[in-house]
């Protein structure tokens, strides 16, 4: 039988999130409700800011982008139980998603930077 984590045989399963235990630790769906409310609020806020044009375009864009990122984390932690797995602490899928995020940013920002053509173009 293979080991799950890095060589530690006796691994206590630690779930940050107390919920998903069959029967035990009944916390009610509060976490989900809070997550949902936050995402509704952030979305509405972003929408309102854009419609009301509360700031300069670039400033505005930065703010709504920040809201989007915050929402992504809400999804990850409140709905997707990202912190939950077989490995203790910082499990490998979190490492991989973090790396994925880094490369995502590289791909997008890099493309924009490269495709805007610097001083050599007319």
């Amino acid at each position, binding site marked *: 039988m293979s080991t*799950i984590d890095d060589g530690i045989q006796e691994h206590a399963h630690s779930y940050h999130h107390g919920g998903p235990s069959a029967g035990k630790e009944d916390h009610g769906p509060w976490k989900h409700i809070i997550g949902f409310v936050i995402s509704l609020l952030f979305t509405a806020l972003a929408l309102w800011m854009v419609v009301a044009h509360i700031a300069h375009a670039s400033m505005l864009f930065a703010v709504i982008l920040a809201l989007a990122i915050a929402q992504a984390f809400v999804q990850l932690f409140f709905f997707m139980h990202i912190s939950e797995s077989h490995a203790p602490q910082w499990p490998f899928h979190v490492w991989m998603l973090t790396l994925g995020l880094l490369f995502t940013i590289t791909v997008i920002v890099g493309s924009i930077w490269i*495709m805007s053509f610097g001083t*050599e173009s007319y």
Partner: protein
Amino acid sequence: MLYNVENFASHFFVLGDPLIYGADVSIVLVSLAIVFVLTYYKKWGWLWREWLTTVDHKKIGIMYMIAALLMLFRGGVDAILMRTQLIMPNMPFLKAQHYNEIFTTHGTIMILFMAMPFIFAMMNIAVPLQIGARDVAFPYLNAISFWLFFFAAMLLNLSFVIGGSPDAGWTSYAPLAGLTFDKGPGENYYLLALQITGIGSMATGINFFVTIMKMRAPGMTLMRMPLFTWSILAACIIIIFAFPPLTAALTLLLMDRLAGAHFFTIFDGGNPMMYVNMFWMWGHPEVYIVVLPAFGVFSEVVATFSKKRTFGYASMVASLIAIAVISFFTWVHHFFTMGAGPGVNSFFAVATMIIAIPTGVKVFNWLFTMYQGRIRTKLPMLWAIAFIPNFAIGGASGVMLAVAPADYQFHNSYFLVAHFHQVLIGGVVFGMLAGMYYWWPKMFGFMLNERLGRIAFWFFNIGFYVCFLPQYWLGWMGMTRRIYTYLPGMGWTFWNIISTFGAYLMGVGFVFIVLQILYSIRYGERDLTGDPWDGRTLEWSLPSPVPHYNFARIPEVTGRDAWWTMKEAKQKGEMQPELEPLKPIHMPNDSGRPFILSVLFFIFGFGMVFTWYPMAAVAFIGILLSLILRSFEYDTDHTLSVDEIRRTEAAYGRV
């Protein structure tokens, strides 16, 4: 009516070229011969049961390897044809169009259908055994990956006789590869074949990542993992993140061609440079996907054949991971000359050079693994030793290319061609051949003939330098790549003659490899020990060839070089732990569905190539159906009884 048929046929089949007729005839003959042999020896059932439906990682690995060797031959013939055309100025051997198709298929096949399956072969064969696992994490998915690759390769090779081959280079830059400049179906073949094999590769990346992360034997911590397994882990990380941009780039170009979209056209706002950009976001990491496993093989081989622990294990691991991550920050070095600005070029130039540092660390660690060791120059080691100077020079020319202002003079010249063959052949091909020789007894249970192997080695190795060193020079003389002919008076002729001569030597080398394999199948010495090289890692603790369940008992790992440690303990007469009683083993069921699914993908691809949408649609529905069927399948594995295991083990003389 008759005219219509004729007209259709003349566009559908590639006609009018004696070389192509030759290819047509030989393909038909070979197919007939295969059918005949299988029927005559009543082997159809065997083929289906033992190979086409297998989910055993070892058999899948063997199939990958055979396919890779065939593709090496196929791409190698392309290379020989190209070199023959280039031997003299104004050589009347190949026409421009034909030459263009040949270098395109040469590059595409060598990278995607030779190098990739070869590394998949090695990882399938060795990784589960090295980590003490009974299988990969998802055996069924593993079979799908293989068959997708296989049928994608078939699809691309079909272009040779039906419809015409792609001709825009293995990079297939838009707008040249777009509909405006390239109407034929060849480009569609390229796009669909790569897409299909790409799906398989991504699945393999995920599969082996999970396998390595989660299925190691007890006691095998990450820092006790063999370096080959580490290198596969790093390669998988790159696959996981680098293939999606290729998928996207291919899809978008296909949409341009088939659906009239405007991503990379030169009209209606399309931006062809974006294709170049996306291609290399995959393309650069790709070269490290293929070279890191080769590094892994060398780490195993060098330690084994120097009878010494790997030097600087921690640095070896760190440098693998560093290379994997940094490889995502260098892609622009393939188009410094696009003029994205000095800021962009500087950033990517420096990032590229930085990769030389961890790579250099690996080179020195290999050297010092040999230092004060006891070097046995068996075939795998021979290739490993030959790799070092080769790759050092090839890597150094890479660093020279990374110097952006110098690259303005090197770009797309034969200097570049020499660089990448030196790292691809000297790194990847040498590495995979070393791996093949190393694990051959483990795969098949017999040894390969040394003498023929040495002849092959010398021909290939010397031929290599004779072929590619002159190309650096040609680059400096201003010879650009992808030209099918050149004028006399440039001083290029002399060097081209030498280079072509070198290519022929390599061809002879390859012939000897084939001879060696054929000879050894008949006369090869059997490997009865399971450990012919005095190995260090767990695969050598098993009998050769390995029983389908791999380990009768999952080993307990107590240190790095797990098998070596066990052997030493035994030698010192330390107390052997009491053998646990055998337990029943769960095994995945064989399944014909991966094969059928991939046939459907093939039909889908073929339909798309010729825009026969009904055909594509039917195949697509078939694909969905087989996925749904799988989802409803709950009975996917079976149990091997203790009796059965005991019987198998006894047959190997191990009880």
